[in-house]
């Protein structure tokens, strides 16, 4: 019978995920961004937009904005933390496995779009890679 272990929930919505959701890092906008892009997931209404300021090939500043579920917003917050200060070349190598392992929880197929929305915004928008295969492969 499912759902008998109520402790599981705390494990799923781990403290740091809730923390990133409630206190998102790098939240807001950059005044004159090098790149800016926003996407939504009409299926669940999640929205994530990312502004990127690049100086000498390095991500000098990054900010995100959006709304939606804890997974989508925490994932965006974690991603900005990771990328800030990275060289663009290095940042470009980040893939969905990195994002999922950073979240550190078992994401069900139904929620994979939420987890990967921020990466999609970064790949498809900020880096002009266009049709990034993204979550459909999840």
């Amino acid at each position, binding site marked *: 019978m*499912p759902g008998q272990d109520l402790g*599981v929930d*705390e494990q799923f*919505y781990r403290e740091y995920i809730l923390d990133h959701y409630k206190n998102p890092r790098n939240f807001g906008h950059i005044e004159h961004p090098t790149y800016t892009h926003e996407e939504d997931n009409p299926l669940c209404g999640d929205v994530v937009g990312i502004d990127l300021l690049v100086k000498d090939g390095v991500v000098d500043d990054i900010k995100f904005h959006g709304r939606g579920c804890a997974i989508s917003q925490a994932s965006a917050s974690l991603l900005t933390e990771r990328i800030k200060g990275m060289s663009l070349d290095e940042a470009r190598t980040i893939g969905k496995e990195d994002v999922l392992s950073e979240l550190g929880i078992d994401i*069900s197929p139904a929620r994979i779009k*939420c987890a990967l929305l921020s990466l999609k915004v970064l790949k498809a928008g900020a880096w002009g890679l266009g049709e990034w295969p993204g979550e459909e492969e999840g």
Partner: protein
Amino acid sequence: MATFTSTSRQPFNAEHVRKDFPFFETGVAYLDSANTSQRPRHVLYAMDEYFEQFNSNVHRAAYHVSEVATERYEGTREAVRRFINAHSAKEVINTRGTTEGINLVAYSWGQKNIKAGDLIVLTILEHHSNIVPWQILAAKTGARLEWVDVDEQGELRLEQYHALLEQKPKLVTLSQISNAIGTINPAKQMVHDAKRAGATVLVDGAQGAPHQGVDVRDLGCDFYAFSGHKMLGPTGAGILWGRRELLEAMDPFMAGGDMIKAVRQEGTTYADLPLKFEAGTQAVAEVIGLGAAIEYLEGLGMENITRHEREITEYAMEALSELPGLRIFGPPVERRAGVVSFEVEGIHPHDLSTIVDRHGVALRAGHHCAMPLMIRLDVPATSRASFYVYTIKDDVDRLVEAVADAQRIFA
């Protein structure tokens, strides 16, 4: 035929009814019946019996098992006729579900009767399956769509509806009950008014037929579409009912085997109703399953079902309302079917669904295939609990407990 279950002819008791549904042995508190219902053994056995004892195609062969299969298949048509109180079983068309029924009307009736500049009236409460076929039809023909809005309680603004009727719409299409927020529309009055304005009227009965039943002659519409899988039947079997004279004047939707009278190199004459609209091999087992579902529902009594759902809905609304920061969408319980759509402050519906799922509670989160309504309510999505004959108060208690736990986690 499979023997009828023990629950029939007894006073309605959901605890007893539940024992007829093997699914509940999983222990899941299933609160997504507006999406798809569970199936009682009576339905499962009827389908098994077909597969095991007279599996064959219908309407074609002159051997015994095919005759039995045909008799059972056509038996469902008669059961549906009785269930919806249609004049004739010839007006009862087997489809895969509500979606196919509406598409059939949009294509076969719509393309013949809707012209550029014609008005089609629908409501903001509609499911996508009663929106998109009309958008496609309007784009093809140059017709225009007008939407009836809702008030703050999620009930249709009838004064606006009447103003639209004055523009003499060619077609009015509306749901009997909103799948997303449970509003029971005043369908009979709305159909009456639309007919008086000269419109052809389709009623989407996907939520109406399972929970309230229907008398199509009393309702007065021209088309009525519903799905078997939301009323204890299997997926893949649904019904379109239409007025005979309209169906007879319509062209076929799909063409192929079974829908013909004679095929020659020079051309084809179509079969009479209802087979004109049933091309190709049908979902025979599923149609037989639908017949068994109707038999089972009639055994329980539709009034009992409606009363039970009202009781559970009232209980759920009261219990959920006690949680802080929880907001319920839609009308008061008197004008609401067994659907409670809500949002919890600070918790996205998908997070809520994930957490309550870990408590063994199956709760729908999303736009419920009613995106225009979500936009109107200014929410990205809602959480939706929906009930049926087998829902018990314990299911609701488990939901409330699980939501409270989610609030604790997100506090």
